[in-house]
């Protein structure tokens, strides 16, 4: 099981923007420097997050990206689901055999439900605050 680079970069981008929200629109070059990530790649991820309704882009000088909603309203599960294409393990394919079907119904599907329950209430706000707490220790 692997989370894609897109998933990892996308979350770091959102967390960075959430933490510096008081600075106004944040340029990707700033995030790239702060997070030591490639700016080119961040551009692709930012575009996806904008289309997905998590970021707003502000054009012009002093432009950059802002969170579309408050961090309290952004659910981590939804972000991962967008970045990963789908966070679900269950996948139905044509011509699945009896064994695949059993695994899908009795392992992958309940596993997805378990992940969904665990992530149900986790918001971007909680992630930034909890991480800050860890950092303080």
């Amino acid at each position, binding site marked *: *099981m692997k989370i894609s680079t897109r998933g990892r970069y996308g*979350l770091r981008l959102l967390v960075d923007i959430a933490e510096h929200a008081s600075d106004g629109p944040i340029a990707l070059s700033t995030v790239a420097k702060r997070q030591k990530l490639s700016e080119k790649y961040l551009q692709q991820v930012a575009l996806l997050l904008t289309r997905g309704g998590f970021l707003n882009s502000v054009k012009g000088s002093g432009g950059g990206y802002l969170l579309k909603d408050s961090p309290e309203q952004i659910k981590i599960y939804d972000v991962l689901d967008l970045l990963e294409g789908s966070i679900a*393990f269950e996948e139905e394919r044509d011509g699945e055999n009896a*064994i695949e079907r*059993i695994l899908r*119904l009795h392992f992958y599907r309940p596993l997805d439900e378990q992940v969904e329950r665990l992530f149900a209430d986790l918001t971007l706000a909680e992630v930034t605050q909890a*991480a800050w707490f*860890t950092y303080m220790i």
Partner: protein
Amino acid sequence: MKLSTKGRYSLQTLVYLATCTENCSIRKISEATGISSGYLEQLMIPLRRAGLVEADRGVLGGYRLSRSSITCHDVLAASEGDFHPAPCKECQKNGMCKTHQIWSLLQRAVVDFSKEVTIEELAAQLVASETGGGI
């Protein structure tokens, strides 16, 4: 997010083996699962090493499960290796990484749940669905 093909195929292979009452040849497993014989041979290497399956040579040879109560986690740990959703292992700043806890949460969800599901209960579901004529 997906399990690797290796992980999925290994689960299928073990569920099938759990329904067999005697040794199963690679050919028979291949017919039941649709996985090629060559690939099955490869899948068996880590599964044998992890002590989940054993094999006999000869006319009545083939594979069988080595023990009872094998969980999905046992299989995935053998076939997928370390089972980390994100490559945090080489990361130098786990303590203060803002996203690390998300990956830990995800990993824990998958590990904990896959420890609860046994290959035997999946095999029982398979047998029940086949005798019920459902598939």
